[in-house]
Each structure stands twice: as C-alpha cells, then as structure tokens.
C-alpha cells in the first residue's frame, strides 16, 4: 500500500485540514492487529470470558488484567511524571514539548486501559457502575477506578490546548489562555491522583499476603509500584522520544533526557535495595539461589530490569541517544517484568493455577496495544503542536519510514 493510495478521500464530514494522518504499511499492520482485537472483543461480548480467554476459577486475573491494566497504566505514567517536571521543577519549561507528547501518550494509554478493562470485567456495561452508584472505599480497585476517572479529566485539560491551538476563534484563545493560568492546579491534582493509583496498583496484590512467592513478596509493594511507575514515566519518555523523533524526524532531546537518567537509575537503585532488603528481613534471601523456574525469572528481571539500566543510565552512555533508548527500554521492560511476575509467576503457584492465555486473548492484548500506537500517530499527525516546531519548518509533515 503506498502512501498516496492510503490518503483518504476528502469527505464532507471531515474537513481536509483535519485529516492529516497518513497510512503507511507499518501503520496498516498495526491497524490490522487493532481490528483483530476488536473482533475478539465482539466475540467476547457475545460468548463470554470463558469462551475467549484462558481465564478460569483457578486464575481469575489473566493477561487482560495484568497486562492491559496493571502494565498499561504505568506505561502511561509519562503523563504525570513529565507534567510534574514541566510545571514544578526548576527549568521545567524546557520540557514543554516532551510533556505534550507525554500527556497525549498518557491520555491514550489510560483511555485504552479503560476500554480494555471493560472487556475484562464480567459485565462490561457495568464498568462505571461503582463510580455512578457508589462502591467500596476499602477496595484498592475502587480507589484506582476513581483516580483513573478523575485523572482522565485532568488529562483532558492537559491536552485540550493542542486542539485549541488549532483554532482561530478568539474565545477559544481566551479560554485557552485562562486554562494555562490554572493548568498547574490540574497538574497538581494529576500528580496526586497518580501517586495514589500507581501505588494502589501494587496494593491490589498485597491482598494475597504471603501467599505470594517470596521472591516477589514485599511488605510495601504499593511503594515499589509507585517508584517503578515514576521511573517508568521518565524511561518511557526516552523510548517514546527515540521512536517519535526517528519517525517524525525530530531533534532527539538528548540533553533534556540525559538529565532524567540519573533519577531513573537512582529510583531503580532504591527499589532494588529495598526489595533485597525486604527479602532479607523476611529471611527469604536464600530464595534467590534456590533452583526453580521462578528464580530464573527473578534473576532475569533483576539483571535486565534493574542492574543493566542502572548501569547504563548512571554511566556516560546516558548522553547518547542509544544509551538513553537502551536504559529507558530496559527500565520499561523491568517494570513490565515486575508486574507480570507479580501477577503471574508469584501467584500461579499459590493459587495452584492452570492458566494459558488463548490466542484470541493474546491477540486482543497485542491488538489493543498496537491500536494505542496508531492512535498516538493519529493525534501527533493531526495536532502538529504536539510535536512543536520542526527542524525544517518547510518540510511537509509526513511520516517517513516505519
């Protein structure tokens, strides 16, 4: 499929200047996956969870919960971390454009998470019932639901200026101006909501207590989750920037991102020490030498998700795009590994779970994730102010390469 062919015909509904998104073979593939996920979603709606997923009573939470919620949310941690840096730290203005991408990415991740969650819960159309009709204040999940819902509003306001910037009408300009005045307030709320729900995603699993495998049991898993989310917020930014700058031929902000690197490495170090310390305090440190599959997974997580990124991001490599990309990616993967290990490895034994995700189940997760990337490109291409001023203003905004 060529770029030209993929250009949509102008329609009455969409004015030309609004449709700037370009189809490419790469995006086409992602869209195809996205469509497959949609098909799975429809089938699931009519046949139920048992028919489409590997879920069963021995394993109530599968891929759709552990990945599509527990992992996807911290992937969107870019939003609150970058906004915090942008608005509250000295010299934060320099991060304006990074933040723009961070918050649109976050908004997409959170929305996508909400939709995915709807398909995971047994009765999708009841997804907002707890918020509308009231739920249970003791439930970390209820707390997460509220935080996410409110944070989505915050994200709306953090992003709406990109749309406003496309508009010429004066009242829009005035409103946008006003919004900018109070935006730090929204950001603050966003940060607070985020500290809450990112930690609560860890709290979720604390209900299993010491049923959890000692390699992952942590008395304050909530803070481990919060800290790794913060690290991920920055690390994900490195990954996102690498891809975005390459794809859209932007300048890669090595300097700005390199300043974040020690923070990421520092947080990871704290987490690593705390995890090991907690294990030692529980008298379980010997577990890391017990030959089990779990131990191998643990070592993989620790070496690739902590030791390696710490080493990279503390080192001079952080001043290179490659170094940042590698360190960021490993951090993100470490975060994913932790969440998958806690959600699956550490619990399946305790629950005596028999669970293998089905092909449709995996397809849904992969497709939905592919969809978020497509949507990101759509926003980025449709709202040019997300990318900010280009190196060559004259060059037409176009996707090149895949």
């Amino acid at each position, binding site marked *: 499929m060529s770029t030209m062919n993929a250009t949509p015909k102008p329609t009455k509904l969409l004015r030309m200047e609004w449709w700037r998104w370009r189809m490419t073979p790469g995006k086409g593939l992602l869209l195809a996956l996205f469509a497959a996920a949609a098909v799975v979603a429809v089938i699931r709606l009519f046949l139920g969870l048992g028919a489409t997923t590997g879920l069963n009573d021995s394993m109530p939470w599968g891929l759709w*919960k552990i990945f599509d919620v527990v992992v996807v949310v911290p992937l969107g941690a870019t939003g609150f971390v970058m906004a915090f840096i942008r608005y*509250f730290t000295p010299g934060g203005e320099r991060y304006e454009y990074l933040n723009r991408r961070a918050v649109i990415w976050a908004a997409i991740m959170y929305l996508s998470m909400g939709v995915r969650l709807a398909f995971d819960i*047994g009765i999708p159309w009841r997804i907002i019932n707890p918020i509308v009709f009231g739920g249970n204040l003791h439930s970390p999940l209820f707390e997460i639901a509220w935080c996410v819902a409110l944070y989505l509003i915050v994200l709306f306001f953090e992003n709406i200026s990109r749309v406003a910037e496309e508009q010429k009408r004066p009242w829009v300009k005035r409103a946008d101006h006003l919004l900018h005045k109070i935006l730090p307030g929204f950001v603050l709320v966003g*940060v607070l909501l985020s*500290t809450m729900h990112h930690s609560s995603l860890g709290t979720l699993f604390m209900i299993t*207590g010491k049923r959890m495998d000692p390699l992952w049991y942590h008395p304050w898993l909530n803070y481990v989750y919060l800290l790794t989310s913060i690290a991920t917020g920055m690390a994900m930014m490195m990954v996102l920037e690498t891809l975005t700058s390459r794809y859209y031929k932007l300048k890669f902000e090595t300097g700005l991102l390199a300043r974040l690197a020690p923070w990421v490495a520092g947080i990871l170090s704290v987490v690593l020490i705390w995890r090991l310390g907690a294990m030692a305090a529980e008298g379980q440190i010997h577990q890391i030498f017990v030959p089990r599959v779990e131990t191998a997974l643990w070592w993989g997580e620790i070496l690739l998700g902590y030791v390696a990124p710490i080493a990279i991001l503390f080192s001079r490599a952080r001043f290179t795009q490659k170094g940042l990309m590698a360190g960021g990616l490993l951090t993100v993967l470490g975060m994913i590994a932790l969440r998958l290990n806690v959600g699956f490895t550490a619990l399946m034994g305790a629950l005596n779970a028999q669970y293998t995700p089905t092909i449709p189940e995996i397809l849904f997760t992969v497709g939905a994730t592919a969809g978020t990337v497509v949507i990101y490109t759509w926003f980025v291409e449709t709202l040019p102010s997300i990318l900010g001023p280009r190196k060559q203003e004259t060059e037409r905004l176009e996707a090149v390469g895949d």
Partner: protein
Amino acid sequence: MTYGMLIDLSKCMGCRGCQVACKQWNDLPGEETSLGTDFTNPQKRSAYTWTTIDFLTAEVNGRTVATFTKSGCMHCLEPACESVCIAGAIKRQENGAVTIDHDKCIGCRYCQLGCPFGVPKYEYDKPVPRMQKCTLCYDRISEGLEPACAATCPSGAILFGEREELLALAKQRIAEGNGRYVDHVYGEHEAGGTAVMYISSVPLDLTTLNTGVTTESVPGFTWKAMRQLPALVGGAAVLSLGLMAYSNRRARLEAEQKGGGEA
C-alpha cells in the same frame, strides 16, 4: 450476632448429603464430571458447586486413612472478598453470612484473588456471568432455618448456631474428648477468624483444609497501604508545591538577573 457452622470432621462420613442439599436448595445444576483419582466430584468447586466433600485417602504408617473435608466459604469475620470488592457487592451481613449482590457485581473477580480460601467462583461460561459462592443459606437463616447442608447432614457433622456458642462447644469437645480431637479449632483464628469452623480427629494436614492460611485479618493486608494514602498524597502535594515555589522563585531570580532593569 454472628451465626456460623461448626464442622466436626470426626463425624463426617463422606455421604455428601450436604453437597446435594446445597445444590437442591440453591437450584444449582449438575456438572459434567468424570471419575477422578479419588471420590471428590466435581473435582473442584465452581459457580455451580459451592460445597464439596474432598476425599483424601492415604497410607500413614502402614495404615489406611481416609478423610472427608467439607469445603466451602468460611464466612470470615473480616472477609477479604468484601474488602476488595470494587462495587461493594459483597457484604458481611449482620448475621454473619457473607453474600454477593449479583445486581452490583461488575465481574472484576478481585474477590477470587483476595479470598485466602479460593472460594468465590465465576460463571465464566456465561455471557452475563455471576460471582457465586456459599451464602450460608442467607435466605434460610434469615427465616430461622438452618443452612441446607446442616439440616441434611445425617451424622450431625455440621452444626449451625451462634459462632460464640459453637466455638465454646468446639473447645468443650476437644477438652472432653480425651485426646480424640486435635487441639485446634480451625477458623478460630484463621484469616482473622471465620464463622465456619472445623474440628478434627486426624491431623489437619491429612484433611484438605488450608493449613497454611494466615491467621491475620486479610483486609488489613491492603488496608495498611490504603491507610497511608492521605499521608502519601499530602507528601506529594507538599513536595510539588514546595518545588513549584522554589522553581518560580528561581525563575524570578533568573529573570531578574537577566533583565535587571525591567522592574
């Protein structure tokens, strides 16, 4: 007042009258099953089988031992399932029964993860599923009847009554049993105390009771973190605002330094 059940495993003979009575009262369908390695069947509890008798036959010191353990919801005094339920669909009723309101349940299945005994089961095979589990026959006990299983049990292995009295009875049986019973009321402290309790004449690890279960109250596991949220949020707010003030000040100073004459 908390009602509960005392299950005297020394009396249970594995007739499974309770298992059928439960299905009958709660109108639960028979499941497709096939022969297992022992008689337990359905081999796992499900949304359609809320209680089973779990058979365990073993050879211990050259002698055959067979135990029959009635499984099902323990009706915790502080139920983990209730504490994690997002929708507030699970309620520990005043009479001690822990029940699920199907109209509220959204199907997040957190209760399944939270319950230390693996009790709630979901209708995964249905497009509009329900979370199911033993209700302590809430509908019966509210009308002054015993739960169906207790009413059926021919051997008197399942006693229904006020938890306090049952606990006292359990201790009395142990004390007066001349060593007939293991000195442990399972459920007195398990999961922070449960309304369904067991006593046994064989060591509990020869039964299918979960002997590894915590004795702490399970909701506390998450509550200890939830409780700190205000402090966490406060801390984050102070940090953010403090940093912002500092940044603003620095920005002002920098601006002043740069364009000194502006003021």
